[in-house]
């Protein structure tokens, strides 16, 4: 399981404090090395949201492709798809940073980036919904008659 290909100890904040942690039988005495307490560790280097979305990974140190180094570019067929892919990119950045922050709750820089991407995502969703219909139930565009939730395209059907 501890295949080097999928382990990036050097990037992890707890590495410097206790390099032998995996083999350390005396865990209870090492509470001070709990990586959740780390301060001032380096925030990992990220792709931008689009580059992250096409890789399925925002974190440069974790990117590990299979048989093909270059990611697959997205080719939107029209403006609607372009705008949809753009909000997907920010939505993806929010998802991946969320998981990182769950295990690195003290990374101030990443918290601020998470909020920046979250705001941008919300803005892009509102713009998209005002043109193409709702994708979230919190949408302001649902204040219409007749009910418009069922009008916008279903994800598995592609764009209408």
């Amino acid at each position, binding site marked *: 399981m501890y295949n080097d290909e999928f382990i990036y100890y050097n990037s992890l904040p*707890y590495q410097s404090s206790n390099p032998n942690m995996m083999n350390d039988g005396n*865990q209870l005495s090492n509470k001070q090395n709990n990586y959740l307490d780390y301060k001032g560790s380096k925030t990992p280097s990220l792709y931008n949201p689009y580059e992250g979305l096409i890789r*399925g990974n925002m974190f440069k140190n974790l990117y590990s492709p299979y048989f093909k180094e270059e990611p697959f570019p997205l080719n939107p067929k029209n403006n609607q798809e372009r705008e949809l892919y753009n909000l997907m990119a920010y939505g*993806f950045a929010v998802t991946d940073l969320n998981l990182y922050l769950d295990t690195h709750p003290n990374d101030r820089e990443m918290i601020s980036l998470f909020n920046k991407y979250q705001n941008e995502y919300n803005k892009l969703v509102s713009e998209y919904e005002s043109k193409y219909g709702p994708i979230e139930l919190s949408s302001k565009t649902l204040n219409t008659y007749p009910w418009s939730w069922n009008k916008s395209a*279903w994800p598995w059907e592609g764009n209408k």
Partner: protein
Amino acid sequence: MWKYVKRLEYPIDIKKKDLRMAKLLLEQLGGANGELAASLRYLVQRFSMPDDIGRALLSDIGSEELGHCEMIATMAYQLMKDATIDEIKKAGLDDYYAAFGKGIFPVNASGVPFTATYINSLGDVIADVQEDMAAEQKARAVYENLMNLTDDQDVVSVLSFLRQREVVHFERFKELFEHYKNMGY
């Protein structure tokens, strides 16, 4: 509580029907290492995580995996929606068709229906998080098998995205595991 968001996590637009691939992809919906098993596993295990780090991570990864079930189902749907009966017979999908028509049902690539025995939830943090780490690696390996079985870029790009998510999830579970080891579990 969950809210449905009416979009996919990553775009899927498959233009070429491929019934054989649709059948194989169902492995990652209803198979032992598929997305349904993953989401169910994390969303039940989280109740016995000892702190907020584990509860948060299992809730958030479990939720993302629900979105991956939708992605696999979307691919299977798009690959077989325009199929004729002749094509279904030729592709060896007639046994699936006999039982489910063109419906999306959680089975593995051999047609065996999904079962909760694919997962575990022991209330033991080390056993559970180790299972989660192994599950992510097994799902990654299955995505590689599937990527070897098709040349369609519309399919490979999505599989590549999903495979990479397993790599990231594994890393987060490993961090969680080391966090709990450090706490003395």
